[in-house]
């Protein structure tokens, strides 16, 4: 299927999962991601693959944990408050080094909130709510095409590093249709024969567990995990930059927000202002390296998010110069419009350049 089709983000993710060999899906309904599970229910049953309408998100993520131990490609999907329920098992999957792929199509607000657009789960995904020292790979698409590409990449990185991976999708993008191509999965399959649990035939039995009553061994285990995270940080920082090379003002945004931010950038470029856009695609590992380089030249960073400033702390950590850092955002509802962002930036420029 190499032609462009009008595709919804959620359906694109489901199709891409099937296309790259996902054989196990476990899920529980929650808006705005339910159509991923609805789509896969028929497609997976037709192919005799594993699909369970789980009793809860806790059930779903634990089925995914079990299935991942077989070495199969495994996915669950959910939203915000229900992803909160999965945090315990994400911690287990990190310690067990099991490649679970979790798609979070975000809702808005703390608690049950509502299904309005928002990007309020940046912290939940990148910092996590589980216990102990662990990290989860987090990828953030900004178009339906990228939903497909990053679904492939999520499965690949999960298998490559034996680490849980979250595809963090704006609710807006999950529910939005635009032309996209279900291209071929560009990534190779990863050999998991050295660790998967498939019966101790002609080999010693294996066990995968996070309990470790020996403190030296537990220390070693966590240190080993962090060596892996260093590898991930070295190899997997991914971002998109737009007109950043000569930029004095750099706008930072992730996910769908970056699309309107680019239009804002074009507006200011036409006025002769040297502006660029920096969009992290891997939220963990955050692309600190490139942001550090850019911060040598740029005088001002403006972080724009549909939340109260969650990625802002990573921007602050990345900017090593004395460049000024501002924030524009709102937590819930209609996406910030181009004009609103332009007005807010004008105010920041007035204040900043008046003081320079």
């Amino acid at each position: 299927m190499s032609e462009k089709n009008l595709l919804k983000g959620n359906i694109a993710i489901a199709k891409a999962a099937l296309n790259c060999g996902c054989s196990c899906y476990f899920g529980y309904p929650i808006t705005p991601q339910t159509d991923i599970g609805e789509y896969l229910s028929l497609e997976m049953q037709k192919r005799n693959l594993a699909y369970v309408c789980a009793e809860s998100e806790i059930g779903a993520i634990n089925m995914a944990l079990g299935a991942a131990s077989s070495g199969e490609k495994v996915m669950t999907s959910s939203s915000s408050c229900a992803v909160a329920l999965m945090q315990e098992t994400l911690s287990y999957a990190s310690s067990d080094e099991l490649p679970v792929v979790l798609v979070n199509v975000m809702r808005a607000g703390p608690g049950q909130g509502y299904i309005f657009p928002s990007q309020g789960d940046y912290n939940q995904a990148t910092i996590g709510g589980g216990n102990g020292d662990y990290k989860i790979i987090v990828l953030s698409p900004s178009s339906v095409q990228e939903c497909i590409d990053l679904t492939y990449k999520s499965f690949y990185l999960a298998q490559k590093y034996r680490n849980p991976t979250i595809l963090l999708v704006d609710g807006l993008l999950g529910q939005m249709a635009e032309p996209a191509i279900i291209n071929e999965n560009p990534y190779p399959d990863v050999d998991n024969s050295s660790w998967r649990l498939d019966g101790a035939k002609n080999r010693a039995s294996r066990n995968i567990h996070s309990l470790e009553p020996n403190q030296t061994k537990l220390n070693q285990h966590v240190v080993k995990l962090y060596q892996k995270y260093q590898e991930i940080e070295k190899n997997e920082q991914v971002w998109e930059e737009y007109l950043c090379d000569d930029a004095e003002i750099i706008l930072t945004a992730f996910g769908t927000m970056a699309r309107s931010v680019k239009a804002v950038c074009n507006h200011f470029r036409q006025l002769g202002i040297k502006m660029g856009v920096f969009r992290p695609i891997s939220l963990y590992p955050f692309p600190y390296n490139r942001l550090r380089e850019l911060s040598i030249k740029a005088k001002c960073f403006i972080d724009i998010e549909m939340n109260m400033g969650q990625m802002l702390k990573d921007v602050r950590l990345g900017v090593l110069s004395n460049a000024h850092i501002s924030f524009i955002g709102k937590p819930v509802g209609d996406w910030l419009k181009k004009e609103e962002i332009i007005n807010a930036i004008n105010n920041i420029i007035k204040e900043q350049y008046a003081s320079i």
Partner: protein
Amino acid sequence: MQVYSIPKSIKKDSKFTFCKGCDHGVAIKLIAEIIDELNLKDDTIAVSSSGCSVLLYNFLDVDCLEAPHGRACAVATGIKRAHKARKDDKFVFTYQGDGDFASIGLGESMHSALRGENITAICINNTNYGMTGGQMGPTSTMGQYTTTSPLGRNKEYHGFPIKTAEQIALCDGTQFSARVALYDIKNILRAKKIIKKAFECQKNNKGFSFVEILSSCPTNWKLSPQDSHTKIKDELTKIYPLDIFKDTTND
């Protein structure tokens, strides 16, 4: 003439680390013997849980995944389904305590039974949370003294215990549900026969099978191993009768 040998499916040189008089050791040995007899060692994936039962993988020489507390049946569902998807069916069983199976994990346990997952769940019922030092659990009996029911379990204050094997038998997806005890040779032999039947239920693709094992906890009951077994025989089997509550394996 050799009259006894350690089952092949017990890890070489392993020494049980359970308390003196605890029945976990007997239960694991029976499971190992059955795995040997049914020739399942190469095809088994066990799921251990939280609490004393987590230690299963230290003794049993099969592939094993540890589940988060209470989630063993969900984890086992995932394992079973994943291997089925790759057309390489495996024998999958959980080994859980009563707190794990019937309190924190009751949702996952019962829904696995309702779905008729073709897995086997073994639940060690010692009427308290053993590893944390003997707190009141879902199966603590009326009047039982524990560290969190210091005046005895009271129906007005604490509510009632669960009869797990009877409840699981009520699920349409359950094909086999039974309760056994290990307080004497006769019961150990009966337990082995029944656990074997539960394993065969899965082997024959019948659906969910469940065995609750009444087990001693001398440390937390503050009784000798012998008195613990007397308590199971004289008191617990009156409350938790030893029986097969559902068996459709011959249907």
